[in-house]
């Protein structure tokens, strides 16, 4: 008897399937033109740019403090990380040291944002395998995080929080109260969520060995963040190039082994726990002191001083009109965003706007591996792989 030969489908019998641009399963606006052999994906042609808003060009025409709201709109699931990344880039350029209290406040805000980002990704992986209930439970916690943001800065999604030189205001007593409530109750809710999926036979069958990528390929494709760590590389900007006082905190970097969807899920799950531990440490060791550096040329003076002091009025006017004296130079600053290394390459010629701002958007860089990751997979696995990569259209297209 001869062995069973694989029967190749003639190419003319392949089916072309348009997945997107607006497909409910892709959680964003991406188009993928799939070439299908039955239910197996033969090749993929991604098209991106549907919500391109020219951030790099916009940034060349805006004063430094007005660029922060642009950064909100990149990874809108964890906007505060983008805001802080931008503020820190400018602080690096002007050589400004932020007081410890402001740094710790930033850490709390950023870690909350990371938890919110990972909640979305992990619960959506569940939804795409058909488990809607976990998503419904855990999204209440995301709501609590957004309530804290609301208390801290007045906004929920596009926060525009922090300022060049520090934070815009101290946490209110109400914000502390909400933060404490969150820290107390989140572990229990997270446990509830993970117990629905972690050892769930259907979930494991759907995710293990789905959309895997090896560490070598992941590095060659410029992966960073949870997706790289799921492949087994322990690269985390928070540890390698600590910023904003991250060197003071004790936390682990979870890594996976296979780089598949289950590993990506698990890495994010564990990172949420680590983030929570960082928040607890920051709350416990929160130093007293000012919430912003003494950089009057960049940091808006308090309103009562603007009305009573000449100098404050001048600075207020200059900042609002975008007349800040920024030194010439070029800096690159990276933060660990929800999806990986979010880098700002800023070139200043001493003018009122950046000469060039290049944004290293982790999503944009790793999404190009998507065709390779889903080649030979089923259509339903392709959806799952995309949601486990946490591709955010805003960050992808900038």
């Amino acid at each position, binding site marked *: 008897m001869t062995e069973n030969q694989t029967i190749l489908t003639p190419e003319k019998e392949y089916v072309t399937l348009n997945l997107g641009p607006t497909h409910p399963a892709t959680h964003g606006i991406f188009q993928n033109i799939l070439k299908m052999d039955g239910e197996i994906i033969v090749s993929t042609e991604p098209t991106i740019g549907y919500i*391109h808003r*020219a951030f790099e*060009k*916009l940034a060349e025409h805006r004063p430094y403090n007005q660029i922060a709201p642009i950064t909100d709109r990149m990874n809108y699931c964890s906007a505060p990380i983008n805001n802080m990344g931008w503020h820190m880039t400018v602080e690096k350029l002007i050589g400004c040291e932020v007081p410890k209290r402001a740094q710790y406040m930033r850490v709390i805000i950023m870690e909350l944002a990371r938890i919110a980002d990972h909640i979305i990704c992990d619960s959506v992986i569940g939804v795409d395998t058909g488990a809607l209930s976990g998503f419904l439970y855990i999204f209440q916690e995301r709501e609590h995080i957004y309530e804290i943001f609301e208390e801290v800065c007045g906004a929920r999604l596009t926060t525009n929080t922090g300022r060049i030189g520090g934070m815009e205001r101290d946490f209110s007593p109400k914000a502390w109260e909400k933060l404490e409530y969150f820290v107390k109750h989140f572990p229990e809710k997270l446990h509830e969520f993970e117990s629905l999926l972690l050892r769930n036979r259907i979930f494991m069958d759907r995710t293990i060995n789905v959309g895997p990528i090896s560490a070598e390929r992941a590095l060659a494709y410029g992966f960073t963040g949870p997706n790289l760590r799921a492949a087994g590389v322990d690269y985390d900007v928070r540890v390698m190039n600590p910023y904003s006082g991250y060197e003071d905190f004790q936390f682990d970097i979870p890594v996976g082994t296979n780089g598949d969807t289950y590993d990506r899920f698990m890495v994010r799950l564990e990172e949420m726990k680590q983030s929570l531990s960082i928040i607890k440490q920051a709350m416990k060791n929160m130093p007293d002191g000012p919430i912003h550096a003494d950089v009057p040329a960049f940091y808006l003076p308090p309103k009562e001083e603007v009305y009573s002091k000449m100098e404050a009025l001048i600075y207020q006017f200059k900042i609002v009109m975008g007349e800040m004296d920024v030194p010439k*130079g070029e800096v690159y600053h990276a933060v660990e965003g929800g999806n990986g290394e979010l*880098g700002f390459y800023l070139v200043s010629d001493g003018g009122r706007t950046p000469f060039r701002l*290049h944004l290293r958007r982790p999503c944009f860089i790793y999404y190009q591996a998507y065709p390779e990751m889903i080649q030979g997979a089923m259509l339903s696995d392709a959806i799952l792989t995309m949601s486990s990569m946490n591709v955010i259209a805003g960050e992808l297209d900038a």
Partner: protein
Amino acid sequence: MKLADIEIPWMEAVVDKLRQRFDTAILSVEQAYDFPNIVIAKQSLMDVLDFLKNDPDMGFTFLTTLCGMHMPEQKGQEFGMVYQLHNLPKNRRLRLKIFMPEGDLNVPTATTLWPTANWMERQEYDFFGFNFVGHPDLRRILNMDEMNYHPMRKQYPLEDLGKHDKDDAKFGR
């Protein structure tokens, strides 16, 4: 501590090795905050990238990002490309730059060394018009295919030319 005073202990050794190997192709070296900035001649770009990536002592195996620049005032060197490499195990980062005149925007592609350069280069082609020689799929990526100019070049204004409400003159600048 001023960040500008940061010392990069390994910078000298790496630069020495590059100079030994490539001699005149290394045009200038300076430190910009916590990064070494190395300007090299365009024709030796691929050799330098290859050396930095594959030499065991260098080990800059991770391409963090690459981006284009347009500096219309810099005559004869209007366009530039910036590559940022990262040696992950040793945590060393460096920045390579090449400059070229407006008439010759051919740049060898880095996709042969890093597949991740594919979309990055498509983006820079889209916005600046660099021609990455040898790129497998050089098409626009974020803008629409019908666009007939490269919008990040400095001569193109942000908004349409009919608008004057944000002119600097109106704000005493």
